């Protein structure tokens, strides 16, 4: 027999859908089926049931093969590399819960580490822009209930956040938006003809790397000033038309993604995007929101915010917190040989960092804490598999609009497996033993 668990939170992307239903065996040990989730989310739940899942820590041998070790040995190894290092890097944090992040932060304090999260290669530039100019934003329910103008800039939710458009942005019927998508106008700015662009009223196929110019052109157009015939490859008539569409709305929302945060201009693009939003508030109501990727990258920025005052790239090595992106960011540290041990948790830099950074991880004492086998676990000395947060253990996660939701445990982890939180708690205890405090 089986039973259905409702109101389950999907631990995949920043959309953080909380209406998933999961069918589990009566004894809570097997997960059979997933309803309401998108293809990626469903796969995340089902992957926990993989037959070939790694369930015990492993250490790399000299000949390159793995040797199974105990959690105690993994705890000791992790504690020792952190204690022995002058300046360890503790990177990742975006696919685990806030409880684990909080303990990790304390470890970082005790050993004098640099802590950085996946925003460093994602929305870190947005965070810098917010420090420059602020951010007028809202929760996703405000979008659902009020927004009649939706602008997606450099993001493709149809593939990256598959349920975003139906739950929050284009299609839902809300309190003041009873007609759903028929009363909304959608603009997409993207150099590529994406599946998101296919549902737009206007698709502005901006020249790659010219987003900053186009943002500025919008600000000019709002004021009714003159534009050149083409800006960023877009004819001025189309820019005026799109600007008028935004100004005539009752509630405008701009969603933006990696297409603008990590292309030419980086944080300056986001400065301009937020300035566009500020300008729109002179005519109507407008908000802007980053499409955060990992389901709890937002949470790690929050935890470090209240503990240290900075959202990412926090250097604790001098005994107090410093923040200087470009200096204290993970890739810069790795490539300049400024760190001497690496702990990776709940993320996959092996797949997403430049090769020059990944090679440094390979050369250093390193541990990867991750339920999956990933390119990162392949380059680390020790791999510590842990329970899936949001599937096998609960805990707090923050949605892309910073709304915190408590994820649920729906199924038991394989026997004897630790959670991120338990593992880190034990590492902290061991560090304190080693330091004699």
């Amino acid at each position, binding site marked *: 027999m089986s039973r259905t668990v409702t109101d389950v939170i999907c631990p995949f992307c920043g959309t953080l859908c909380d209406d998933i239903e999961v069918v589990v065996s009566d004894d809570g040990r097997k997960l059979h089926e997933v309803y309401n989730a998108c293809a990626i989310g469903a796969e995340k739940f089902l992957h926990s049931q993989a037959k070939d899942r790694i369930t015990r820590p492993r250490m790399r041998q000299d000949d390159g093969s793995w040797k199974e070790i105990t959690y105690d040995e993994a705890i000791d190894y992790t504690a020792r590399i952190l204690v022995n290092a002058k300046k360890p890097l503790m990177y990742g944090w975006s696919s685990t819960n806030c409880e684990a992040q909080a303990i990790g932060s304390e470890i970082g304090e005790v050993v004098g580490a640099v802590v950085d999260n996946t925003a460093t290669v994602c929305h870190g530039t947005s965070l810098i822009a917010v420090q420059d100019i602020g*951010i007028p934003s809202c929760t996703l329910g405000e979008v659902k209930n009020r927004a009649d103008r939706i602008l997606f800039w450099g993001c493709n939710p149809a593939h990256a956040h598959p349920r975003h458009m139906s739950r929050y942005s284009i299609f839902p019927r809300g309190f003041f938006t009873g007609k759903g998508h028929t009363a909304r106008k959608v603009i997409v700015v993207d150099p590529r003809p994406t599946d998101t662009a296919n549902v737009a009223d206007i698709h502005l196929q901006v020249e790659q790397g010219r987003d900053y110019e186009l943002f500025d052109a919008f600000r000019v157009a709002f004021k009714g000033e003159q534009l050149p015939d083409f800006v960023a490859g877009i004819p001025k008539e189309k820019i005026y038309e799109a600007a008028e569409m935004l100004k005539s709305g009752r509630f405008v929302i701009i969603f933006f993604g990696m297409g603008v945060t990590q292309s030419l201009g980086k944080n300056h693009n986001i400065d301009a995007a937020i300035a566009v939003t500020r300008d729109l508030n002179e005519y109507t109501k407008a908000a802007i929101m980053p499409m955060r990727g990992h389901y709890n990258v937002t949470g790690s920025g929050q935890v470090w*915010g209240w503990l240290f005052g900075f959202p990412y790239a926090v250097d604790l090595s001098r005994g107090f917190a410093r923040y200087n992106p470009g200096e204290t960011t993970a890739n810069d540290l790795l490539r300049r040989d400024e760190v001497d041990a690496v702990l990776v948790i709940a993320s996959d830099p092996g797949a997403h960092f430049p090769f020059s950074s990944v090679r440094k991880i390979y050369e250093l004492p390193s541990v990867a804490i991750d339920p999956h086998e990933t390119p990162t676990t392949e380059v680390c000395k020790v791999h510590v598999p842990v329970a899936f947060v949001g599937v096998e253990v609960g805990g707090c996660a923050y949605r892309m609009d910073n709304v915190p939701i408590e994820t649920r445990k729906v199924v038991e982890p394989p026997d004897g497996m630790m959670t991120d939180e338990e593992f880190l708690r034990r590492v902290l205890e061991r560090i304190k033993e080693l330091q004699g405090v």
Partner: protein
Amino acid sequence: MAEYLIKNGFVFDPVIGIRGDIADIAIKDCKFVETSEVKDPKVIDAAGKTVMAGGVDVHAHVAGPKVNVGRNFRPEDKLFTYKPRSGVERMQGGFSVPTTIRTGYNYARMGYTTVMEAAMPPLYARHTHEEIRDTPILDQGAYPVFGNNWFVLEYLRNDEIENTAAYVAWLLRATKGYAVKVVNPGGTEAWGWGLNCENIHDPVPYFNITPAQIVKGLIEANEYLGLPHSMHIHANNLGNPGNYTTTLDTFRLSEGIRPRSKFGRDQVMHHTHVQFHSYGGDSWANFESKAPEIIDYVNSHDNITIDLGAVTLDETTTMTADGPFEHHLTELNHLKWANTDVELETGSGVVPYIYSPSIKVCAIQWCIGLELALLAKDPMRVFLSTDHPNAGPFTRYPRIMKWLMSEEARNQQIDSFKYRDKVIDATNLAGIDRELDLYEIAQMTRAGPAKALGLSQIYGGLAPGLDADVAVYDFNPNEPYAPDDIETAFSSAEHLFKTGVQVIRDHEIVSNGNKRTLWVNAKVNENPQVMRDVREKFLRYYTVTLNNYEVSGHYLPNPYVIEVDATQ
């Protein structure tokens, strides 16, 4: 549990009515006891020093989403402020929006032991409780905001007090909240469309209700439930010249209503940061103090309490659930602006602000905050606050004490203003020679707020039976002193006990204490209509499901639940 005896201090305590006489204070099992009850106490020699109960802050923004926006978007606030970890202290940074760790330690250093977070957006209650959990030492509670909540607007439009009360009780339980907070009633909902409600009769778009109806209805719902604290309001029209009439109109909504609470408070309305609401004139050019008009009303109506929101002349970070105000402010000072509108519930904004003594308006604001305290007839109803961090960081409380206790210190400040004469013309402070004494300070910072919160059974005094929260300051009120000595002494308690645990010894933090989170569990009769409305709103308009809304117990590792029975 250890026993302590704090011997021979000059004790100031409005609860037992002792005004600086030498007395001994005994602690046993977390409580104050008669000195005869301790057998083998550890003795703290307080001879020549001042002894007061632990401070109670009725209104500060110290935990939650907008506070963290303030931290994360102001790296400059950490410049030159960081302190490395040492001893039991973790690392700590930030000036106007300190980290949670520093918040706990810095309040403790001033001798404060209880601090209320003034505005919790219900949808973000978990975040608020995570930060409270990570704030050491202090007992804390948080006020969920109700003044722009769609349930409240719809019930009160039809004058449905009982339904409003049932919803309030439900939301307090769901968010683990402490009191009913109202911020710019109706105005923040209007801000969802970029609009505002500028006075108490300005109707809320679509909802067809006025701020006056919201305020009166929430007072009545609050008294229907008999909650420990009264309705706690930040009125419409904050920060604008000429707004004192809106403030008086708001005060008048409480007329004729008496408290129906067994928690010992006398007020039915607490109006917060009244400094921001006491402005005359009709432009920044003829901006002036209307503090006398405002405080006259408060002095003659005993069902109102207020806190000051005193300006400290610092660079700080403003943050409020008054979304339209923060937009107004960024248009004024052109500094960075963060805003978050929260579905069905509220909104908020954050903007840095520099209160410069060289700007006339800022200097007038500084005068108004102090005038309110100095013209108050009953210090048990007028509390010290800076609306931290809006008018200044809480770490300036000792400086405000200095200004309130010393005319000399005030005159020094006035004389340093760039527009001294214009400021004197627009205010009344220069003509006030009153100097508060430590007994009155204890009323404004201990006994008064504890009573208004409905917590005088545990906080605010040194009487046997109360929780053993007590501070010893290195200050001899009977010796001559310079004004700055006040600020120095009250910035750094020599000893502090929190619920019987010594957390500061010889000015050093020696323990992270035993912090508790206070929340109010109000029981009401079953109300099927309200529960149906809750289910429907979650199904149709919220983006989280009803089952994922309630804050579960593990966010409150050490809860202190106050039970209220409103079933009849």
